[in-house]
């Protein structure tokens, strides 16, 4: 009996290791400080709009090296209201669209894996279902300080006026991309996504968006308790093509987005650009557990 138990334990441990040690190193989240980041509905505000001074007064500050968050971090909820209501930058407002969602973000690592946890309350919805399969999706993009402006504007470096679902987007197949982006030069965003249907994706955004091929994402688990969603990503420090290599002491650019209420394409709530530091000070710090 004892042998069987030991074997079972060994098998369980082996399975856990095979899964990249996700279970073995999972952090005690009650001991990890959370950072509140409010994602907001951005309407149609591609990087071309962001950097056009005659449209967006902040373009001047951006050119001087200021981050979007340095001006807007505390007012994303108000910004979201303007776009969700159609007052600004949204030619087709969606009835019932949540203007903003406050999210608590936690991060930790165990020397081999990064753990990211996101928790938020499900806002009211009720719009037509663009994505019938998924009530909610959560995507995270990480960047290794190679793309000019990624440290300032976060995911906006991948968001363009000619992308699908944008008012000026003519090509239904054109998704996110980075100008001059390619894997070889490191000019890409690592992209991971969890969907409420239970899928996980590990891809990247370079000259185009690719939703698979990554080898770093071990697990993406989400659950809803009451009206609160919790999503945890477990990601190895290193993977394959399209997976940026993480290391303690370094800082990376991070942005994330929630596709709430069965939405798709640009109709998501997004974060501004923030920094993720491993054992170092950043907007979101992942300390070793």
């Amino acid at each position, binding site marked *: 009996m004892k042998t069987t138990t030991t074997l079972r334990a060994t098998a369980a441990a082996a399975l856990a290791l095979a899964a990249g040690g996700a279970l073995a190193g999972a952090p005690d989240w009650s001991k990890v400080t959370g950072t509140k980041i409010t994602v907001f509905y951005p309407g149609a505000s591609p990087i071309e709009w962001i950097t056009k001074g005659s449209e967006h007064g902040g373009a001047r500050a951006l050119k*001087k090296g200021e981050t979007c968050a340095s001006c807007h971090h505390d007012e994303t909820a108000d910004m979201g209201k303007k776009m969700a209501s159609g007052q600004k930058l949204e030619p087709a407002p969606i009835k019932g669209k949540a203007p903003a969602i406050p999210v608590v973000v936690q991060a930790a690592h165990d020397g081999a894996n990064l753990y990211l946890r996101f928790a938020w309350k499900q806002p009211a919805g009720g719009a037509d279902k663009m994505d019938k399969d998924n009530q909610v999706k959560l995507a995270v993009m990480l960047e290794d300080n190679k793309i000019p402006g990624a440290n300032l504007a976060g995911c906006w470096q991948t968001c363009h006026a000619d992308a699908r679902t944008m008012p000026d987007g003519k090509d239904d197949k054109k998704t996110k991309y980075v100008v001059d982006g390619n894997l070889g030069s490191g000019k890409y965003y690592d992209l991971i996504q969890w969907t409420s249907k239970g899928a996980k994706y590990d891809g990247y955004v370079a000259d185009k968006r690719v939703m698979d091929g990554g080898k770093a994402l071990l697990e993406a688990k989400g659950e809803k308790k009451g009206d609160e969603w919790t999503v945890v990503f477990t990601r190895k420090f290193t993977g394959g093509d399209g997976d940026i290599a993480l290391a303690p002491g370094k800082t990376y650019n991070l942005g994330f987005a929630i596709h709430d209420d069965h939405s798709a394409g640009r109709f998501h709530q997004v974060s501004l650009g923030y920094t993720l530091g491993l054992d170092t000070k950043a907007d979101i710090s992942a300390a070793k557990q």
Partner: protein
Amino acid sequence: MNDSAKPAGWWARMRRPSTRLSVLFLVGLGVIAGIVLWGGFNTAVEATNKEAFCIGCHEMRDNVYKEYSENTIHYTNRTGVRATCPDCHVPKEWVPKMMRKVQASRELYGKLVGTVDTREKFEAKRLQLAEREWARMKANDSLECRNCHTLASMDPEKQKPRAKKSHELAKKNNDTCIDCHKGIAHHKPKGMKEDDE
């Protein structure tokens, strides 16, 4: 003394010392005349410095004034302080004000020949007019704005983060108000340069 040797005519009479009026009377008369003339001139100038004068022409009333009075912070706001046309477009100091008045006198010609007497003509010329005004305000370091607003008297802690950050940058880079605050009282013209804010 030979009277015939004295110069004759109007100019001569003006130059000839009075034999009947006292110096005190003449000085007093001069002061009163000065007050009347100066006061009259100033009153006339100030009459052209009122919003009612500015929107006396339909070109201003139906275009820029209409936009300004629809929903702008300088027309209606929480505190009830209103900035009218001359507050933003005419310097308060006398010399700059007179220079501006002389410059503006060419608008009379524009009025006579109907340069912007229709909405279409106004829209066609709007960018040029706006750029000229922005250049003027940039050249005088946004003097009219600074009649009411100064960076030194702002309390950044009471400003929204983006305003606080922008004003810190403006101070650091010696920017002037109009560098960032274009289109705050009137619609922005089509075709403006991407860097114009």
